[in-house]
């Protein structure tokens, strides 16, 4: 008797994708001049035509947000909270629709969009809804004031979740926003715009302008925004920091990472293996805080790698809509090219490459879960962010060496520590220069917990009480 999982596809019938989408400005969808196609990265099928916002469109959106700021910022916090709670509840009610659309446009497995992304999105709106009338306790003294209009630019790896991280605290604090979703993943942001309409959110409080780099540039450089919030690559982050220098715009940047996931010889091995897998293959490794550098103590390296390879053979790669899929599609052809380029460089530089045996679909963008061993600190795959399902394995002999290697990176977003010894967790976490440190777990996110990086991983924190600070200033009178 055999027992092979039959295909278990989530139905896409719940999602109604329109042929074309306009820009969401001042509470309504408006047409623009140019448009571009958005696709499903798992099949390369065209999903919809999306409007590319021009500088003039961005200006209209900022002006709408400026007008809306007048009344939104003066509204009682408890009343702003009502809107945010309403949005959170609608997100829960429409969770399946959001999850399906997210997986279609992003390529991530439905299990993740259903069990991780969308529940966290709702949690962020609930959390910040609760803050809206308690801003006196945000850490800036009594009667803190909102900044004004926030220009927000988000990446394609967690399209809806990054939108929630940006919009929920901004609105709770009394700001209005103009948000630009990533070029390849605009659809859930546009569905969120419909949810804003459904929630009767006042016009202009949330504006969504779709487009690519030029649209983002127009937003960042617009003279009438007070705040830039960006999540994405360090390269673009650098440009933004330069662009806002000399203006009075506040800025938060959440950029790249090259996290060390450190496994000590006294770790709970089976759970560490799960943590390694979840650390790098969750969301195809398209995670800024991914545990892309495994630092394993030499004495157990062989055991850990043996178990890791066995475990990786069980990963199910393929159709993101199948409820049993563990690893979905790479988000775009460009990203796939970058992953391939860095992986080839890893091999050329002398590291050993191993990929989980799997059959990849013919259409779409795919990369097998891959491990590099015999990696040195000098290799590009040990230093540069791959942003894909590629793990570099390094070893260490002592805790000091682990700290030294972990910190030897221009990034400092996250780190993981695996040990059964509590005192070692505390000691290591005080020495690791990373904004988020997980102990005996990895890639855990919570609306109440601040998130952000050191060094080239950016500045500012999102989530929790700390996540309000970038959207508030102390009372001016």
């Amino acid at each position, binding site marked *: 008797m055999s*027992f092979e999982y*039959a295909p278990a596809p989530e139905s896409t019938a719940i999602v109604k994708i329109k042929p074309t989408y306009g820009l969401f400005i001042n509470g309504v969808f408006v047409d623009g001049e140019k448009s571009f196609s958005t696709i499903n990265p798992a099949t390369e099928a065209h999903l919809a035509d999306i409007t590319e916002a021009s500088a003039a469109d961005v200006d209209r959106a900022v002006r709408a947000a400026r007008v809306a700021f007048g009344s939104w910022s003066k509204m009682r916090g408890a009343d702003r909270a009502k809107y945010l709670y309403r949005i959170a509840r609608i997100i829960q009610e429409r969770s399946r629709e959001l999850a399906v659309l997210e997986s279609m446009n992003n390529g991530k497995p439905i299990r993740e969009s259903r069990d991780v992304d969308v529940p966290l999105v709702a949690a962020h709106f609930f959390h910040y809804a609760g803050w809206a009338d308690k801003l006196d306790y945000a850490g800036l003294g009594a009667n803190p004031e909102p900044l004004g209009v926030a220009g927000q630019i988000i990446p394609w790896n967690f399209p809806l979740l990054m939108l929630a991280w940006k919009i929920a605290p901004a609105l709770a604090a009394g700001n209005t926003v103009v948000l630009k979703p990533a070029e390849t993943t605009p659809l859930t942001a546009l569905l969120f715009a419909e949810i804003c309409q459904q929630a009767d959110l006042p016009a202009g409080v949330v504006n969504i302008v779709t487009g690519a780099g030029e649209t983002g540039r127009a937003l960042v450089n617009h003279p009438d925004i007070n705040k830039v919030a960006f999540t994405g690559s360090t390269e673009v982050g650098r440009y933004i920091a330069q662009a806002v220098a000399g203006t009075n715009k506040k800025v938060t940047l959440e950029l790249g990472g090259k996290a060390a996931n450190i496994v000590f010889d006294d770790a709970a091995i089976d759970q560490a293996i799960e943590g390694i897998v979840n650390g790098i293959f969750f969301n195809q490794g398209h995670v800024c805080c991914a545990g892309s550098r495994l630092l394993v103590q030499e004495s157990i390296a062989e055991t850990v790698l043996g178990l890791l390879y066995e475990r990786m053979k069980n990963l199910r790669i393929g159709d993101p809509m199948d409820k049993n899929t563990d690893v979905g599609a790479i988000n775009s052809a460009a990203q796939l090219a970058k992953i391939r380029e860095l992986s080839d460089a890893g091999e050329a530089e002398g590291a050993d490459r191993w990929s989980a045996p799997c059959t990849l679909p013919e259409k779409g963008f795919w990369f097998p879960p891959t491990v590099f061993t015999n990696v040195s600190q000098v290799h590009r795959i040990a230093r540069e962010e791959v942003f894909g399902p590629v793990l570099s394995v390094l070893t260490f002999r002592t805790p000091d060496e682990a700290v030294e290697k972990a910190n030897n990176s221009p990034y400092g977003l996250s780190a993981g520590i695996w040990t059964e010894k509590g005192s070692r967790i505390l000691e290591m976490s005080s020495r690791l220069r990373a904004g988020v440190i997980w102990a005996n777990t990895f890639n855990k996110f919570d609306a109440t917990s601040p998130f952000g990086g050191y060094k080239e991983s950016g500045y500012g924190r999102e989530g929790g009480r700390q996540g309000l600070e970038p959207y508030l200033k102390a009372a001016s009178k």
Partner: protein
Amino acid sequence: MGLTTQAPSQTFSDETRTNASLTKFLHGLPGVDQVGADERAAMLSTRSIKTSAKAEGIDLAISMIDLTTLEGMDTAGKIKTLCAKAMRPDPFDPTTPSVAAVCVYGDKVAQAKSYLTGSSIQVAAVATAFPSGRASRAVKLLDTSDAVAQGADEIDMVIDRGAFLEGRYMDVFEEIQAIKVACKSAHLKVIFETGELRTYDNVRRASWLAMIAGADFIKTSTGKVSPAATLPVTLVMLQAIRDFHNAGQRKIGMKPAGGIRTAKDALRYLVLVKETLGDAWLTPDLFRLGASSVLNDLLMQRKRLQTGAYSGPDYVTVD
């Protein structure tokens, strides 16, 4: 499904010389992080088993059941109906597989054997002062020998949880060894009563203790203590079985028992086995489900897959 008893290829003689050396060995096993183990089991329970996979899984699960009655009120009549059900779970559909074994108290073994004549169904007997295990070693050995003499093919023994929790691992080890000898050719399943051991670290230690002492199967629970079998406890035991096999040792079987009531529960256990030990363990020789009520739900789900309609509890037999 003939079970073959394998001898340990390595005797672990150094580890089992004294209680101190055995303690050192068991406490030197990697720890189990409870949160992580629970999470992994929860993730695997989201696997969606549909259509052909469901049909295969249901038949596989039926063929792995140790159909059990362990009540003070057990009578010859009860054993007879249980055996009839074990051989032909669905009297209307001869394609339904029979179960792996019936599991009874020692004094009911002869009756069960006679009712199962001509079938390949095994008779398992609980022994060693089941379920508490609170009796002298002599009584436990006699309990075992008696069941074996009556024809039991399999013995389900309980460990002395008191001794285990006191750190007297050597006593537990020697008792399992002694019972194994008393089993002769009968297969030995060792029950930990994981609901009393409580921690996953203890479950992993008990698993190794039983495996190096000669267990053929390791089993979660008696069914008399709550919690009985859970997915994470089973996962921890399956991982111990995998590690034992990776260390060059023989294949140990696994039996979660108690609390498995629905077809969905049963399929979740199969998923756990498949993704921890692989397809090689998906056989009644190496995996059993200790349960009784789950059979009827499996039969109803089986019928529903065939006909598209849910027949209801009046269309499966009550035993």
